[in-house]
């Protein structure tokens, strides 16, 4: 077990109103090299869990342990190692890259601050390698991200996260803002990288079809609680909880015959 999240809770201050509790006793584990999907609707707390896993916010209760590090209280060398080994990719390809840095500076920043490559030339070489690996042209290294498309930006974001060889990559809705025709490229890239680098991927999404495609293990969240978790086959083939069932039933299918049949069946069910 690489990371364990043990019954964490989190509330947000809404003064003068009473605080809003967004996570209730959430527990889940991540093994090395596995892809795990956190799915839920808006307000399910999935992004809050991702932020806790990245130590961007601290839960009030519970514990998060990564490879022997107490994440919530980590300091100094321990925190530095955690920051090197757990990385993330965000939803918004426009807001997630500093517009005042070149592609080289963006991707090379991790190498620089973790002192992984001593010289600028060596860093540059590593940046070129990783750009090539994620399907970017290394000649674009000196450009700013302004002129890149959403899909290319997500590749840059992935390269920036992966260049320091993390062991966990947390992806918060990484394809939700992309065009349909580009979405598949990024999903395939993530899948590819996971296999090549033996990376654990935590994939936060509202789109169950994408999660089904990418993740072996699924955690279904609803109103800050884990409703159901299990393997892909369990969740999609034989969901036990009514919430999971209703969620799956509502996903539209790009096939008129199957789609109409699914909707007709569902309406019949609700009518009864």
């Amino acid at each position, binding site marked *: 077990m690489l990371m364990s999240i043990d019954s964490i809770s989190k509330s947000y201050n809404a003064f003068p109103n009473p605080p809003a509790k967004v996570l209730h006793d959430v527990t889940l584990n991540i093994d090395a090299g596995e892809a795990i999907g956190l799915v839920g609707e808006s307000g399910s707390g999935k992004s809050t869990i991702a932020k806790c896993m990245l130590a961007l916010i601290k839960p009030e209760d519970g514990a998060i342990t990564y490879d022997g590090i107490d994440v919530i209280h980590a300091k100094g060398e321990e925190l530095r190692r955690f920051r090197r080994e*757990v990385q993330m990719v965000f939803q918004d390809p426009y807001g*997630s890259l500093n517009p005042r840095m070149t592609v080289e500076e963006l991707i090379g920043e991790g190498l620089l*601050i973790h002192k992984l490559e001593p010289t600028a030339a060596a860093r540059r070489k590593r940046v070129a390698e990783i750009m090539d690996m994620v399907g970017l042209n290394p000649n674009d290294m000196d450009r700013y991200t302004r002129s890149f498309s959403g899909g290319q930006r997500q590749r840059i974001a992935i390269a920036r996260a992966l260049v320091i060889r993390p062991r966990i990559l947390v992806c918060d809705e990484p394809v939700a803002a992309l065009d349909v025709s580009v979405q598949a490229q990024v999903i395939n890239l993530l899948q590819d990288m996971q296999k090549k680098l033996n990376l654990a991927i935590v994939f936060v999404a509202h789109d169950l079809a994408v999660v089904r495609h990418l993740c072996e293990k699924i955690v279904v969240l609803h109103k800050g609680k884990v409703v159901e978790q299990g393997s892909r086959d369990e969740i999609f083939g034989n969901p036990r909880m009514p919430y999971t069932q209703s969620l799956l039933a509502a996903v539209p299918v790009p096939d008129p015959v199957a789609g109409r049949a699914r909707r007709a069946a569902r309406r019949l069910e609700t009518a009864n």
Partner: protein
Amino acid sequence: MTAIAQPATTRRKEGFSAFEIFVFTLVIALLVIAVFGPFLAPDSIYNSDIANSLMPPSAANWFGTDDQGRDVFWRLIVGAQTTLLSAFLVVTLYSLIGVTLATVAAAGPRWLDEGLMRITDIGLALPGMIVALGFAAAMGASLRSAIIAMAITGWPITARMLRGIMRQTMEQPFVAGAQVLGVSKWRLMTKHVLPNSLDVLIVKWAGDIGTTVLVLASLSFIGVGAQPPSAEWGATIAAARGYVSTAWWTVVAPGAAVAITSIAFGLLGDIIQVRRDPSLRGN
């Protein structure tokens, strides 16, 4: 999903309109006058020549002469340096204070942020010119006092605005990305947050020069700023105040100089703002 999204890729450079070129020329001309004016002016304007006092505008004295018989036009040229230099000094000083406080507030712990912002609230709630007047009067009426007084009362708007923008920038995903990467607080603020927050300030800076010229002239007029025989424009108006009905040019000319300078820098600020964000066009 709207088709006209993608501002990044459709951004285009546009040429300058005639109006914009006019404003740029005006600002540059003012700066040139401020820098070189005193070297060009004839020595005679520093001495009084009572025989020629309060002469109306003529070929020899374009804007006429004042009560001391000095040429009004050349005194304006010489005064431009004092006026603009003081304004630049004031804006630079309070911008430095504002930027420092905003950065500390944005980067620091919550209690420090709260504390600094309450102090800023106090500064914002008080009438700035009156407090500056008090400081300048207490320190002994002089141009130096007025500059210091304006610098210590001018920073709250900058601090409040910049701190707000920095907090917004810190909400941007790329800042969380840098934190996840493990960058130090110093690098986070200087490399990621500040560069992406400062450009609003640059817009404000141009407009602030215009406002500062106005307030400085007001303080001099009230009597706590530059003192006669300084050629600073506000002091010039104050000195000429009694002659408005007998020699209107002694009052109109320096006031127009203040107005033109303040309007020119104000317009410069507007132009930069519209260039940064074309959706504001026409505002």
